[in-house]
């Protein structure tokens, strides 16, 4: 392949990488917008810390496990990624670096999804520990199985088809979120004395909107870049599928929530877009344009009912379990339904649709559908097992959840020492950054003993 082709491919991947990293801002604002004001600042510190730790973990270990050749279960080269190294038999060069960075961006997205269920009550330390385990082990194992030539890349000759990661990235994140939630429990006041769920509205729909649009935009890099090349301008087809499904997701969710509550819920419209995008992630490179809106529409309707159903039992403020978990499963399976003969990976069979309405062999399609199901199962088991263990460990050691007083006061003041919107909670600086006397007590207060929540009588 002439050098220029590789360079064009990598330039495209570079663009996609930037777009996928941008999604971090999307998740940040989705979470901040769906949190109360007293928990608005912690989301910033969290996203930065997560991205940071995940980056180092991926560079040191994760990348090697995911892409480092090796066996069915994990790669064995590429650790502490550096020059003069061979990864899966190839010498490291600019192209390898670019692809390694692109892989990291995906890992970071998957991790960001995890925290959606944990808002407003988790200990900051939990992010730190889990982020490292996730970036070094959890995500890499799944990525290796499907994309790294591992177990799922060949099941009885049939490969799992997950173009950009409905299950590898999104389901993985959602399962981590599920494990965390089980050990964490709901926010104070989420369920009343009779166990009925109560509404705890987030504080800013505009920020939620910012998050959703950023995610939507980033997805063009997420799916479009997963071609890894520009050959045949195939990325154009992938991007169009992505847009069609996202649109249908918005429509589906808006309709569903309107029918249920007679109002057009802003957050649900956003969840619908995300569900549509998550749904099309796996099939974006394998289905025809007409199938994309169908996949998105189903995902959009699904997310509304799922959010309402789950809310009865589990406290998932941003709807991560529904939008990333269930929509991720649907997306993975939908490849087995709508996969088009001209697009499916070699060895794979077209979707059931073509068997039922076309003349593709039914058995083969069913087999492929089963294989897609296997990917879901595998992802769930592996991720859940390691995640629940990790969170249990955290719970048993440093603790997983802040105490009631801290939760009541909000994570901003209790974990970060300052509210996310300082002036909305404290008197104006004009009269708070006071006189010598104030400073004096300020100084005294610096001792742990006088932490906000433990302020003692004078």
């Amino acid at each position, binding site marked *: 392949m002439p050098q220029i082709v590789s360079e064009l491919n990598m330039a495209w991947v570079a663009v996609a990488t930037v777009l996928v990293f941008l999604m971090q801002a999307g998740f940040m604002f989705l979470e901040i917008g769906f949190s109360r004001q007293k928990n608005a600042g912690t989301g910033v510190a969290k996203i930065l810390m997560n991205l940071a730790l995940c980056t180092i973990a991926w560079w040191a270990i994760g990348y090697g496990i995911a892409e480092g050749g090796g066996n069915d279960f994990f790669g064995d080269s590429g650790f502490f990624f550096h020059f003069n190294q061979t990864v899966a038999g190839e010498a490291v060069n600019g192209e390898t670096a670019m692809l390694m960075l692109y892989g990291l961006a995906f890992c970071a997205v998957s991790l960001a999804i995890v925290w959606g269920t944990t808002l407003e009550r988790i200990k900051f330390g939990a992010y730190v520990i889990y982020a490292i385990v996730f970036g070094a082990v959890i995500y890499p194992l799944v990525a290796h199985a499907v994309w790294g030539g591992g177990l799922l890349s060949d099941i009885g000759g049939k490969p799992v088809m997950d173009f950009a990661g409905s299950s590898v990235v999104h389901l993985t994140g959602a399962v981590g979120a599920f494990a965390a939630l089980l050990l964490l429990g709901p926010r104070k006041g989420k369920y009343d004395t009779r166990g009925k769920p109560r509404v705890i509205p987030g504080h800013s729909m505009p920020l939620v909107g910012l998050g959703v649009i950023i995610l939507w935009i980033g997805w063009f890099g997420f799916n479009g870049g997963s071609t890894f090349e520009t050959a045949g301008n195939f990325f154009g087809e992938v991007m169009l599928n992505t847009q069609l499904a996202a649109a249908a997701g918005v429509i589906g969710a808006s309709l569903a929530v309107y029918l249920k509550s007679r109002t057009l819920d802003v957050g649900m419209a956003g969840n619908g877009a995300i569900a549509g995008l998550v749904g099309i992630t796996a099939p974006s490179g394998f289905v025809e344009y007409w199938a994309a809106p169908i996949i998105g529409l189903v995902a959009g309707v699904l997310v509304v009912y799922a959010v309402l159903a789950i809310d009865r039992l589990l406290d998932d403020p941003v709807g991560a379990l529904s939008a990333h978990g269930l929509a991720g499963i649907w997306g993975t399976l939908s490849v087995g339904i709508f996969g088009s003969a001209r697009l499916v990976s070699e060895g794979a069979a077209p979707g059931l649709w073509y068997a039922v309405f076309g003349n593709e062999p039914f058995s083969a399609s069913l087999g492929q559908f089963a294989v897609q199901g296997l990917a879901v199962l595998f992802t769930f088991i592996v991720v859940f097992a390691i995640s629940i263990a990790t969170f249990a460990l955290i719970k048993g050691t440093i603790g997983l959840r802040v105490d009631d007083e801290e939760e009541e006061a909000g994570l901003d003041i209790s974990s970060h020492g300052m509210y996310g919107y300082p002036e909305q*909670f*404290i*008197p104006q600086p004009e009269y708070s950054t006071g006189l010598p006397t104030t*400073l004096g007590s300020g100084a005294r207060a*610096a001792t742990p003993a006088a932490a*906000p929540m433990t302020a003692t009588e004078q």
Partner: protein
Amino acid sequence: MKKIEAFIRHEAFEPIRAELLDRGFPSLSIIEAKGSGRQKGIIERYRGSTLTVNVRPKLKLEVVVEDKDKPLVVETILKHARTGEVGDGKVFVLPVEEAIRIRTGEDGEEVLQAHPEEGAPS
């Protein structure tokens, strides 16, 4: 008539409101306040430095009632607002000379009276 002013914790409001409603006192007002008292201020940290905020957010409850209803309302407030910790706040009672319902223009104690149908929990 008396005006009952209470500085309470935010958490205490909903139970007070609900019980007052049950007892036939649907009418009240709340105002966001900040206060200092025996309870110490909040210590904040910003960019590595420390800052003390000397007032804490409180909720000010205002209810105007007939003289005879005052004890009942005060007792209801005390019941739900007390945690035993510093910062529970205080209740003050002030005299009111006149009360007028704007909608009807009618004045006097009756404008404070609970209306039969208001007895039921809303």
